[in-house]
């Protein structure tokens, strides 16, 4: 009986109902939207952090995973590379050699990271090829030609490194690298490109060169330190990781001297700081959510109280005609329940819609920046954040707001139950 009454009450008082729903919905929309913003930010963060250096997945030897050391290499099998490339969700595989060496001119030199890559494969994996500020990305080597046949090896330098060394396009550099056989490898380098990837550690101190040249200078012929995989959709990463792990288990290449069996590692393991940061941000979001919930709660509570106050006469009459106080309370509770259900549903729908819109047009972060470019923890961002509308952004706020709403309905319901029929009909407090 009281549910029917509640429904009728809700529809009878369109304005009041709308106001209540609007209040609850606004809170929900806000939460869903901020959730979307945060998701978008984290996604951009992960994509930015994995776009150049580590990728989303890496295959490396066990020893290299424990210690990133030049000696922990593995035999590069093109068969394995092809097999991994064929896995669904993998957009590219780039085997790399990582060296530390001395790069410089006669007077000015610096110990830097040298990354040996296959130019074409690297292009399919990392942003670096498209982040060339000056000059060009490395040219693929003609098959069979010597890495340094033309007298010098082409390199792409991070922008900061180029600045520190004081070199530009076309300038020559000398490289010294201690190879895995203890030899002191040397090479003449020619700067063909300067990259600005937005990844601080790359831009400040990395040299990209042809894989074969890097292998040759460090006595690492036919070997690599890791293979970086590009998995464009982060949601696919776990699935791809499993498949690669299966592949590695079944076709472990003969590793010879080097770093032991091959493993696959995801960005979460390769960038534990980032993964932790994201977890932490999600958690610290609760502080903000709590504030929003409390404020929204106060709003809802007062809306309910106000509406109860307004309807005091009505309650009085109900009590006077013999409706038990408990039933009156139950009716009010059902009203609140219905209202607070509708609010979040409306809010969630609107929130999803707005997130969908932002997923198409993007949220312009540039309005907050004076320099017009953003970087956070060493990762540069696009100026627009593109949301991803997903149901996961909705459940939390919906449930929480509904619970807050119901709790807030209890107070007016209880006070209505304690009403004195005569006084309230008379309109006195």
């Amino acid at each position, binding site marked *: 009986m009281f549910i029917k009454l509640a429904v009728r009450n809700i529809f009878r*008082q369109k304005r009041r109902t709308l106001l209540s729903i609007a209040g609850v919905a606004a809170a929900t929309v806000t939460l869903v939207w901020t959730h979307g913003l945060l998701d978008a930010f984290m996604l951009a963060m992960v994509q930015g952090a994995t776009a150049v250096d580590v990728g989303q997945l890496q295959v490396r030897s066990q020893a290299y995973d424990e210690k990133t050391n030049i000696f922990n290499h593995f035999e590069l099998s093109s068969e394995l590379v092809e097999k991994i490339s064929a896995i669904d969700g993998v957009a590219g595989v780039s085997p790399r050699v990582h060296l530390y060496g001395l790069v410089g001119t006669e007077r000015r030199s610096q110990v830097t990271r040298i990354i040996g890559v296959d130019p074409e494969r690297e292009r399919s994996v990392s942003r670096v090829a498209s982040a060339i500020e000056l000059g060009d990305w490395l040219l693929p080597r003609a098959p069979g030609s010597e890495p340094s046949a033309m007298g010098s090896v082409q390199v792409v330098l991070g922008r900061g490194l180029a600045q520190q060394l004081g070199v530009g396009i076309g300038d020559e550099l000398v490289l010294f690298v201690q190879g895995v056989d203890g030899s002191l490898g040397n090479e003449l380098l020619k700067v063909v490109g300067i990259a600005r990837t937005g990844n*601080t550690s790359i831009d400040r101190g990395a040299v990209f060169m042809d894989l074969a040249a890097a292998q040759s200078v460090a006595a690492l012929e036919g070997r690599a330190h890791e293979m970086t995989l590009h998995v464009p959709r982060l949601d696919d990463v776990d699935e791809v990781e499993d498949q690669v792990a299966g592949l590695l288990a079944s076709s472990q290449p003969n590793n010879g001297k080097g770093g032991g069996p091959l493993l696959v590692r995801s960005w979460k393991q390769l960038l534990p*700081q980032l993964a932790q940061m994201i977890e932490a941000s999600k958690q*610290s979001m609760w502080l903000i959510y709590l504030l929003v919930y409390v*404020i929204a709660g106060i709003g809802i509570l007062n809306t309910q109280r106000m509406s109860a106050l307004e309807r005091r006469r009505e309650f009085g009459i109900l009590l006077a005609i013999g409706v038990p106080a408990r039933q009156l309370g139950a009716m009010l509770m059902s009203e609140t329940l219905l209202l607070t259900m509708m609010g979040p549903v409306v809010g969630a729908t609107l929130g999803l819609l707005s997130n969908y819109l932002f997923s198409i047009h993007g949220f312009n972060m540039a309005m907050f920046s*004076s*320099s017009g470019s953003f970087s956070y923890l060493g990762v540069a961002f696009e100026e627009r954040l593109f949301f991803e509308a997903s149901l996961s952004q909705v459940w939390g706020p919906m449930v929480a707001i509904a619970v807050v709403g119901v709790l807030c309905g209890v107070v007016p319901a209880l006070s209505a139950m304690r009403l004195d029929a005569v006084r309230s009909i008379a309109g006195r*407090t």
Partner: protein
Amino acid sequence: MFAMAWRNLWRQRGRSSIMLSVIAFTFGMMLMTMGMGDFMHSQMAQSAVDGAGGSVLVHAEGYWASQGAELVIREPDPLIAEAEQLEGTRLVVPRVRVYGLLNSARGAAGVSLMGIVPEKEAALEDYSRFVVEGDYLLGDVADPLVLGRGVVEELELELGDKVVLTATDPQGELVRALFHLSGIVETGVDSIDDVLAMTSLRKAQEALALGDAVHQLGVVLDDDARRFAVRDVLRERLGPKAEDLGEQAKRPSAQKLELLTWDEAMPEMLGFIEIDDAFFYVFALAIFVVVAFGVANTFLMSVKQRVRELGLLAALGLRPAQVARLVLFETLLLASLSLLIGYAIGLAGHLLLLHYGIDMKSFYDADMEVSGVALVDTMLHSQLTVSKWLNAGLVLLVGLMLSALYPALMASRLDPVEAMRSFD
């Protein structure tokens, strides 16, 4: 009229208390949020200034891009004197910065050595608070060296042990100097703890055969916001004067300098702060939306009730303008009272946060580091910016008065009979 408004409020105790509580509470919450936001922002900006080494940095031209040890400020003293005379300069911090190799009998490690004046440096990033063993640079050891935990482990050192620094002096010669480990610093950020080495400015100058030269002057300002103006003034005053240029070789003081504000020197730090701020603005906006809805809802909800009540007043002979004024007065009273309570709540929250703070460590377990600057202080406190708080109150007051216009206007146009009849 005023008395009547006051009485009206009291008569409608239920409604008034609801209004009051919603405005006061949400306003208080807003103030607290603002307090936390301002605190976070100023702390970020402060650690940026601290980490960069001052609001404005002075180097020999080209130093910052190349970090070349040979690019020194040859005669810093007149520059320091000049910069210190500027209004708003708190102090000028001279520094020697050089990359070198540190050797113990058991190992070697590359370090980034800073020669500092600890008393002055304390105004910025005060590493003395991270000292876990030994002393800071304040003891009377002749050749003290404070090292990051990572360096100490790499070199297998204990306090008092000998270490030899090898570095390049401005002439490009290799120099060696003996130091004794006097303190160990642990910031918790590996990328800092693994390379940090600090000694006194004097000792660093001596070890590197620098004479009086330094690599960097950090100008610390009373108000960081004035950094651009100060940079321009300094550029004007410290740069080689046009008439000196011809004789530059003869006048070492007329050396070309570069002046950078901290955000020019560390753009990524600025980006970090801006993103942080951006998020805060977005959330503040979200909270404001929720507050606005809460308040507006409560107001609108009461309109109908008020209509009847105001209709009664009209029936009793009040002129429409009078009715409107009454409503406005009532709202003003209510709003002022709510704001006062809101301020009290906000202030209480502010004081609580100021005193206890929220430890964000559980949230930020990861190393927080930007451009080699540790963001290690994880306590969230609050900061009161009086003008912002007053503005927030003013905005809310104006908003409330505007929203009160609606029922007031409505009431003034009411037909008393109709209004009286309006029940639900």
